[in-house]
């Protein structure tokens, strides 16, 4: 009921069409009652009483009525679909909007496959019910009402007796819908589980193979596949039992009409034509009865689907915009963290009372061990997460007081995982600035050291890169991502330097690109190179979510601390190697 109340407003803008459709449904249902009356009249007046001049017109009337009814039936469905398809369009569009706005915190926990099944299967279930379900359901309802009315009108005694089965039928329909709801819920949930299981073992096939764990994966899959089959069979058994039971009840009605109606004809209470019309009416009732199970199932699935859809729509984004959030202009690039604490909802403290002041144009290198909070720290600036306490300020403004779009427009990012979209390189580079000219794109690509590579491709900037940028190496993808960030030309840049999977030459290309990107901007770099650290205005060393030390390389190297350890163990040997190379020349 709650779901219905929530869903109905979607029809608001098309309410006139809905009314038109319902009017047509009522008319068509009424016309459906007319045909048996014509037949009854034909049997009694023409075939039995011999008024043969009515034979041809009466027979033609049957076709004429059907023709009119046919036109109306097309109209009722078409009008309703006009509205319901728009409703579904809106639902999809809203879901998409929601998905685009949910925070990183949500996606940390979500599985792509499960989300997909919501937006596809659940919306599809709603779509079927919203158009076809409503039209057929109300058509059937109208047919039942008019048919029962006509039966009562012809002979209330026979009608009353032949309709005793109706209460049983209602009872059966209600019990069936109860069973069906839980059965379909189980199937839908299991479908999601099964796809998730398959998807995971396909995505991870390389790991599966490397560890020779195929059998484990097969067993995991079989477990889900088994449950899936069991649930489906349970639903099949339920559906076929109840729908056939309902058919049986309808047949009981026909038997009663024949038996009791026959006696009424014998006693002269009704004519043979009436008996035949009663039979036809019972046949009219049969279809709604048969379809009852179907329609109940359709609405049940739609209800379950809508519940999940609304659940998703109601998911509150952790980083919602304030009602009166103001748009930021172009920032100068000043960033400050004031007593910032942060933890994910597991409760584990990730950042612990962080204080940081960064002036426009400064370059900040962030160092620390894995899990020390480096990623979390830089994710707070574009407000991918909100701090648990404290505040993040850009140009003196709390990031929670401004619109997300204007904030993020001021920040370019090169994320650790390079994701490219399945489109051309040109579009990928211009991702953050859709209106960019070709000159701008090429300039960004040149600065990111990827232009030469792109120019060497047959389709150059029109080359389509596949799912997850298939066809490009890790280093190439990363440079495309850098070009993408460069094109934003934003006052703040956030880089994750822990480059993956590149050879020495490529690493140098990337480094040059990154240096380029940081020029004249406030830059935050998760650093893994000595040169980055040396060139940084400020080095922030993180240890278990706390700032262990802040300063320049020269200052920090004087202290006996974590930085010194990192320097001694990794940065210095690399430097010495460079020196050794110089000797080799």
């Amino acid at each position, binding site marked *: 009921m709650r779901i219905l109340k929530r869903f109905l407003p979607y029809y608001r803008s098309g309410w006139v069409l809905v009314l038109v459709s319902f009017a047509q449904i009522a008319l068509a249902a009424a016309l459906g009652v007319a045909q048996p009356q014509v037949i009854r009249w034909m049997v009694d007046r023409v*075939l039995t009483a011999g008024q043969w001049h009515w*034979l*041809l017109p009466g027979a033609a009337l049957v*076709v004429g*009525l059907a023709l009119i009814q046919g036109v109306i039936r*097309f109209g009722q469905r078409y009008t309703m679909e*006009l509205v319901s398809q728009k409703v579904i369009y809106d639902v999809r569009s809203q879901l*998409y*909007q929601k*998905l685009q706005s949910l925070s990183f915190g949500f*996606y940390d926990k979500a599985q*792509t*496959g499960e989300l*997909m099944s919501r937006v596809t299967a659940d919306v599809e279930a709603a779509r079927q019910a919203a158009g076809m379900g409503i039209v057929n359901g109300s058509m059937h309802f109208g047919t039942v009402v008019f048919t029962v009315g006509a039966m009562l009108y012809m002979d209330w005694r026979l009608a009353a007796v032949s309709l005793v089965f109706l209460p049983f039928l209602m009872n059966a329909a209600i019990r069936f819908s109860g069973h069906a709801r839980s059965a379909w819920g189980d199937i839908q949930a299991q479908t999601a589980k099964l796809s998730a299981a*398959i998807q*995971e073992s396909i*995505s991870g096939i390389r*790991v599966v*193979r490397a*560890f020779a764990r195929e059998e484990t994966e097969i067993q995991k899959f079989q477990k889900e596949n*088994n449950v899936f*089959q069991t649930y*489906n*069979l349970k639903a099949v058994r339920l559906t*076929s039992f109840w729908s*056939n*039971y309902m*058919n049986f009840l309808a*047949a009981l009605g026909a*038997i009663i009409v024949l038996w009791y109606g026959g*006696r009424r004809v*014998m006693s002269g209470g009704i004519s*043979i034509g009436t*008996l035949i019309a009663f039979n036809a009416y019972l046949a009219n009732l049969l279809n709604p009865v048969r379809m009852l199970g179907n329609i109940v199932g359709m609405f049940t699935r739609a209800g379950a689907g809508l519940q999940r859809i609304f659940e998703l729509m109601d998911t509150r984004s952790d980083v919602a915009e304030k009602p009166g959030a103001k748009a930021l202009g172009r920032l100068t690039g000043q960033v400050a963290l004031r007593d910032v604490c942060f933890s994910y909802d597991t409760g584990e403290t990730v950042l612990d009372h962080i204080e940081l002041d960064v002036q426009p144009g400064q370059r900040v290198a962030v*160092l620390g061990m*894995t899990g020390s909070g480096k990623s979390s720290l830089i994710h707070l600036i574009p407000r*991918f997460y909100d701090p648990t306490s404290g505040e993040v300020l850009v140009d003196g403004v709390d990031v929670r007081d401004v619109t997300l779009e204007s904030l*993020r427009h001021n920040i370019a990012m090169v*994320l650790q*995982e390079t994701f490219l*979209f*399945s489109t051309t390189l040109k579009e990928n580079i211009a991702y953050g600035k859709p209106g960019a000219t070709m000159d701008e794109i090429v*300039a*960004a690509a*040149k*600065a990111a*050291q990827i232009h030469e590579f792109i120019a060497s491709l047959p389709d150059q900037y029109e080359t389509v890169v*596949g*799912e997850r940028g*298939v*066809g490009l190496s890790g280093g190439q993808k990363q440079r495309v991502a850098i070009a993408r960030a460069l094109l934003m030309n934003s006052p703040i840049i956030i880089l994750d330097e*822990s480059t*993956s999977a590149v050879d*020495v030459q*490529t690493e140098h*290309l990337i480094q040059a690109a990154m240096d*380029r990107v940081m020029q004249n901007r406030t830059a935050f770099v998760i650093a893994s190179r000595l040169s980055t650290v040396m060139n940084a205005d400020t080095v922030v060393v993180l240890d278990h979510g706390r700032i262990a030390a802040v300063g320049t390389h020269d200052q920090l190297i004087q202290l006996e601390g974590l930085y010194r350890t*990192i320097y001694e163990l990794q940065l210095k040997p690399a430097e010495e*190697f460079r020196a050794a190379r110089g000797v*080799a020349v």
Partner: protein
Amino acid sequence: MGMPFNSGGPGGLRLDEYEVKLSDVDKAVYRRMWGFIRPYTGKLLIGVLLMAVTAISGLVGPYMVQVAIDSFIKTRDTAGLNWIALAFLVTAFLNWWSSYGQDYVVSWVGQTIIYDLRDQMFRHLQKLSFKFYDQMATGRIMSRLMSDVDAINQLVSSGVVSIFANSMVLVAIIATMLKMNWRLALVAFLTIPVLLLVIRYFRDRMRETFMTMRRRYADLNANLAESISGVRVTQSFTRENQNQGQFNQVNEQTRQANMDAISVLAMFFPSIEVVAALGITLVLWYGGVLIRGGAAGVTVGQVAAFILYLRRFFDPIRDLSQVYNVFQAAVVSAERVSEVLDQEPEVVDAPDAQAMARAVGQVRFEHIDFGYVPGQLVLKDVNIAAQPGQTIALVGPTGAGKTSIISLLARFYDPEAGRVLIDGHDLRNVTQYSWRSQLGVVMQDTFLFTGTVRDNIRYGRPAAIDADVVAAATAVGAHEFIARMPKGYDTEVNERGSKLSVGQRQLIAFARALCADPALLILDEATSNIDTYTEVLIQNALKHLLTGRTSFVIAHRLSTIRNADRIYLIDDGGIVEEGTHDELLNLGGRYADLYLGQFKALAEAEANVAAADSLKA
């Protein structure tokens, strides 16, 4: 995120379109589908038998009405009426249970076939070589396993039922009508050609509109899938509005396609009703003519029965006309499924393959030639020798063939020429399982499975006890951060590793490799995502762990390269230089050049920057 949503990788398979004509379908596809149905022919026969019972018991109703009217009601025979009502009741009861049985049996077969098919596909996927996965995106494999298999089920549970049940009903109705009154029957049958014309007209239009609709749905899903996967980038670049616009466009196209398909459908069913009404008209009119003539012995009861039969006559014909669509969709799906099943695994166990005992770790590549595409060699005459316990570093530019070498070592592919020998055994002569279960592999792409951290670490050796897991984690320096999480080793992670950083995931992947207690360790640029300090921890840990274990490392970090027992410089598919770090540096050859060349690369990079600046100005 742009206009063409080709989710396909390079060199996609041919069945991505829905417009495949039945005539194009290979006979082998039918044979294969028959192979899945055959084990259940007995059950299906029972189903068909029950269908016959259902069809006949469902059709005696109108006949009994006719008998009741003509023989008992008109003659006021109350006892006869009682009997006929009782007979009617019995047949209705029979009809209830036989149709229940029929539905259940047929659906059971359908569901079981689905189960078998998915099971076989999944097992096959586990055997298929990486070449297959290189060219087939996950989403496309998924759609074959989920939607295509469902479409095949439609064929069994709707298609087969429809053909048999409806044909039986049709034959039974025609026979009964002819027997009752052949003249009236023939007149009623005049509507059949009209009906067939109507069906044909709509069938083509339905096919077209439904095809378009399916294609729109495919676009919609592709857009959605990518939007979800790339949501972090989207938010970083504030592309939400732009994407919404693109999505709305696809969404609108889907709505349009839906409307078109539904319009045709909404016209189709009423049209059938009109033809049915035409039949009733004909029966009434000609029945009247015959009764008036008095000669043919037509009764009012017969006319009544005919009208009842005609109502049931059109449903089976309409359903049968739909079977073609179901059938076509199913066959196309079957072909797509077959395409997966027909993929031969490139790497298979030899018939006489032996299980390999625990390897000592001596590795030899002898004159290896290898390529992913026929005619294009990626490796040419590669020779590598590693003594037990040695650390081998592979260095060289991207695309030189380093990953190919370790892929051959793990036997993810087989070489075109030459042999890979482990302790003197050709890898092709041992079972894949016995060899791979001795490997510890850490790849570029850190993939964790849904489950606890503990389960992920012991993935390669499920028998590992908790102490082993902790030991492995401690050795790679992962224990500290795992222990700091509230749930420790019982923390749930998934594909994307949820709250773990990339570095942490890599540490877990490391622990996973070590926990497998491998005879041979393969690291593919595995330390690139770990910060310097952590890497040092790992390097130190590895120093101890690598002793007694042969290991192959694709290395970029100097510390790894320097500590290797032997360095192979790979370029353009061949070994250019080999030796220790000092040997190669003193050699002053390519290895030394490669590092000196960095300066050159840097200079070029700076030139590019200058060029870009001048273009901007």
